[in-house]
């Protein structure tokens, strides 16, 4: 366990965060954008757990932040999917290019 330094775990989570950012930039479909956001939230969770384990092993605060982030991500995904289904019902499409009523 001690052979892997903290910086390598941080590098994995950084790469995962920017993969999610790439998906958010290139995708035009609401469901795939939501999937990219889930990847970014997960990379943050990895950071919290790794910092807690390596730097502050006598507290558990990072684990609680992770638990609350997972809870909020679940609520966010549920609300987002309700909005997506409502949007599909009125526009027959979930591309962000087709939902432009509030643009002007």
């Amino acid at each position, binding site marked *: 366990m001690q052979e892997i330094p903290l910086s390598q775990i941080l590098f994995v989570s950084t790469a995962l965060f920017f993969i999610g950012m790439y998906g958010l*930039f290139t995708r035009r479909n609401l469901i795939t954008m939501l999937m990219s956001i889930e990847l970014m939230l997960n990379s943050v969770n990895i950071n919290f757990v790794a910092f807690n384990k390596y730097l502050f*092993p006598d507290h558990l605060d990072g684990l609680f932040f992770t638990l609350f982030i997972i809870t909020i991500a679940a609520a966010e995904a549920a609300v987002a999917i309700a909005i997506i289904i409502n949007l599909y019902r009125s526009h027959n499409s979930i591309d962000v290019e087709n939902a432009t009523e509030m643009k002007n």
Partner: protein
Amino acid sequence: MNISSILFYAISTIILVAGILAVTSVKIFRAAIWLLFSLVGIAALYFWMQVEFIAAIQIVVYVGGIVVLIIFSIFLTQNSGKEMNSPALSKKIFSALAALLGTAFVHNLIVHYEGFAFNSAKPFNPNVAEIGTQMLSTTSHGFILPFEVVSMLLLAAMVGCIVIAMRPTNKLESESTIFINKD
């Protein structure tokens, strides 16, 4: 190079490759399945870090809840075998460039930062009894207030989902809503 390091590199490879495929796959259902593999890999990384409770929560909530919800909404809203429109090449190139530059920048910061003092004075003890006691404790390291706030948030999200996704029953009311939207 012992077995623990090899496991770490294998898990990291799975996470990153599945993540890249999840954001680049042109079929939306395959993208969802690659996301599932990436999330399972993250749960494996939590097991590797010996935080079994978080790993179990990750599997139950993400793999069993969110990905299944995403797959259901894919089935409800589109033809899952159809290929999505690929973004323009220039957009792909510039997004990839931005992501690579960001990764290189943050990696540079991490490599040159000296402040990661490894603190091994006390053992890391994340067992479930400890987590549960601290979650509901009202002392200075307790998390009872965020726990209550997040329970209200979940209630609000549940009510909000029902209200948003409910089909409007009154025909006249729905027409007037559409009229307002187009105005």
